[in-house]
């Protein structure tokens, strides 16, 4: 399986995402923000970082980059897309995912390991996870407070994919929401960093399930 990782100017976790893809047994493909070409990949990851310096608003400029037109078309045709942290912000700005991400309630950047509860396995990126299971994945962001007009409806529609485990919400997100999906389930975004949680030498491995899911579905 070939998984593309987009590099925007200011992306920081693109190399980490590519390394995680490789560690999980898929082939990482570097995609460039300025190219209108996904190189025929089977899935796309929008990585963390500070695309375009996060100037104006996180993800607000990146959504207009040439590659995003292709990502939207790919998502529209059912292709698996994962937005991590800044990538999640880009997907929300691009209208591919519901809601928005605001400054952390504590007004500071927060980097820590948190536990997430898997709320939905009806997605390309969590199909191999157990519903209700708890996974440990780090967060690191200054603007990760998820907001939505109607979180109850979002949950009822099954679009809440991850919640922070009780007492672990690091940023004041509404209803402890850490990650969401589109109605079809092929596009997922989350603030925690699964690419930092695949190698036991470096810490918890709660991120492996996301990559295992997309790999399993590909076969």
């Amino acid at each position: 399986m070939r998984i593309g990782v987009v590099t925007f100017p200011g992306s920081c976790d693109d190399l980490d995402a590519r390394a995680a893809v490789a560690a999980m047994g898929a082939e990482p493909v570097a995609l460039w923000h300025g190219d209108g070409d996904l190189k025929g990949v089977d899935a796309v990851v929008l990585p963390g970082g500070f695309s375009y310096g996060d100037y104006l608003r996180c993800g607000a400029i990146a959504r207009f980059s040439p590659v995003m037109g292709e990502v939207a078309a790919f998502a529209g045709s059912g292709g698996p897309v994962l937005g991590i942290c800044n990538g999640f912000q880009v997907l929300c700005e691009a209208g591919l995912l519901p809601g928005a991400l605001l400054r952390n309630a504590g007004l500071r950047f927060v980097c820590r390991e948190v536990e997430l509860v898997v709320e939905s396995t009806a997605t390309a990126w969590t199909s191999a996870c157990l519903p209700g299971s708890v996974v440990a994945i780090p967060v690191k962001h200054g603007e990760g407070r998820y907001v939505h007009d109607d979180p109850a409806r979002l949950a009822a529609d099954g679009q809440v994919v991850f919640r922070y485990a009780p007492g672990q919400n690091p940023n004041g997100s509404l209803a402890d929401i850490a990650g969401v999906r589109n109605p079809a389930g092929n596009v997922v975004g989350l603030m925690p960093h699964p690419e930092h949680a695949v190698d036991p030498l470096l810490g918890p491995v709660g991120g492996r399930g996301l990559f295992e899911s997309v790999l399993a579905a590909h076969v």
Partner: protein
Amino acid sequence: MSSVVEGLHRQLGLSDEELERILGMLGREPTRAELAMYSLMWSEHCSYKSSKVHLRRLPSEGPRVLQGPGENAGVVDLGDGLAAVFKIESHNHPSFVEPFQGAATGVGGIIRDILAMGARPAASLNSLRFGDPAEPVARRLLEGVVAGIGHYGNCVGVATVGGEVVFDPCYQGNPLVNALTVGFMPAARLLSGRAEQPGDLAVLMGAKTGRDGIGGASVLASASFEEGDEAKRPNVQVGDPFQEKLLIEACLELGERRLLRGLQDLGAAGISCAVAEVSARAGMGMEVELDAVPLREPSMEAWEVLVSESQERMLALVDPARLPDVLEVCDRWGVLANVLGEMRSGGRLTIRFRGEVVAEVPAGSLADEGPVYRRPLIPPPPPADAEVPLDADPADAVLALAGDPTCASKRWVWEQYDRFVGHGTVAGPGCDAAVLRVPGGHRAVALATDGNGRYTALDPGAGAALAVAEAARNVACTGALPIAVTNCLNFASPERPEVMGTFAAAVDGMAAACRALGLPVTGGNVSFYNESSGRPIHPTPIVGVLGLLEDAATAVPSGFQRSGLDVWLLGATRVELGGSVWQRLATGRLEGRPPALDLAAEAELQGLLVELAGRRLLAGAHDLSDGGLAVALVEAVLAAGVGATVELPPGLPPLAALASESPSRVLLAAAPEAAEELEALAGGAGVPAARVGATGGDRLVVPGVLDLPLGRLRDAYEGALPRALGEPA
């Protein structure tokens, strides 16, 4: 050429004698631009004019040293063609004047130093010193500095993985912000800032040049603080990490594709320093066209363009045949690139601006031939004995030590830093040393920074040696073999003989420790004038040690990771409380002798740690330092929430055993099956080793002395800093 205003040199920080020296070298009056260049290049910060004669006494050679002092950063060989590039640098004064930007640009600057050698910057550590965190001024500085470090490091994608934070009233008016960065690269692609080839082009890359940071190295970094120095805020640079991120990626691609002859960072003294240093290192000269510099403000004068310390700029040395490729790479990354000059043989810098020659001086006169001072010095007085009361309840003492902001958890600080990016952080903040996997193999490096200003204030030579020993011991606790040192020497004004005497003694102590432990000093930084309204800081030499671990998977974790392990104490405990945290808490004083360091014993201990780790006999290790055994035990049991029951070293009052800061001691956790081999190896190395207890339970118990639940310890240790800052724990 225009003539110079009478007395301008003094405003720029040059003495009358230094002006005379310039007149003698040039045989004429300097232009305004030339005077500005000399004032920066001959500043204490850039020229090391007061420290040079002493720094020569530090060992800088060793079989692993690929690049010692004199380049942008030190480089050591890790084996199999891999190299680590590392260096520490201060940004103390800018961080006092404007904490967020001062600290942020300190991080940006040291990252560019690593980049200039061709390495991808991988991770940073920071040594920070502030006044009492409960004081509003210190709190504002701490919050601003930490936010600035986090902002810059997080945005450029360089993990922040360790360091230390110490609080002491002596830093109230002059905080210390020392930033260390390490990078990795194939040794064969090592770059240098040497312009060897006539006709090569000097290409200025990165941000536009503005009026920020003018005089940063002279009026800011090379002078003491007085009341009203808020007016120096415009001398602080302003950082843009997004620009730096693009610059990093562009420079790395240029290096990987071997499109560069050399690379130099623009830091203190800006273009002046970069063109002078790349030329002088190779005995070359350069024709410089300042009109090629993209300006933020078109009204800037030549001297301002020459000395501006605008951030996020690099100078690339390029073969003219490669120029189109270089410009294409820069364009793709959105990095401005302009040909600033052309290399010439003969050693002369000729600088033109708007049709006029504004400066024409020998490059070496700026970079190498500045004044060198053998400043008068008064040797420090020998330390005297002092008594510290030991009548407190041991349990109360342990809680007080664990809850002292200097000893307590720095989670409040490091949770603001991205420690994960780069997929290499095996051990991060809160551990004895950071452990980073080296890309391209199984190796890892371990890094720690240490420095105890209280010890150094009592006995400069002993304090500096203790700093080397502690940083190296922290590295050895992970199982890594310490191999090299970078240092940042933070002192008060070199114009005071007692400060110079302290400095000289500290260098001697550091040199002796480095020799005894086989550690070459590959680079670093001297920061003088750390005093505010006549109040000097404690002399504070900070030592960064880099160690090598052949297999990242064998890294020994910090503290007690599971129950059922034996607890061992290596090393001898004596009643040594001079300069200790307990002395400060119990008496509020700083007096006596710092703990005695036996360098041979320290070397044996560190060798033993590496040996034990290599044989996989260790399940955990933790160094004893500030707060002695008490703080080490608290940290060890809180590391994974596993309690322990231990006996104290015999023959001492319990509180002395807990609070003494005797060096060369380490707590170990090891499986019971390892006991025999561990004891034999320790015996063979001559290192005292006692099995003092076992891990397990949810309390820290010293039978007959104290019995504390982990919850209370956690509250004291984790809650101390938030409480001191007036925040919910």
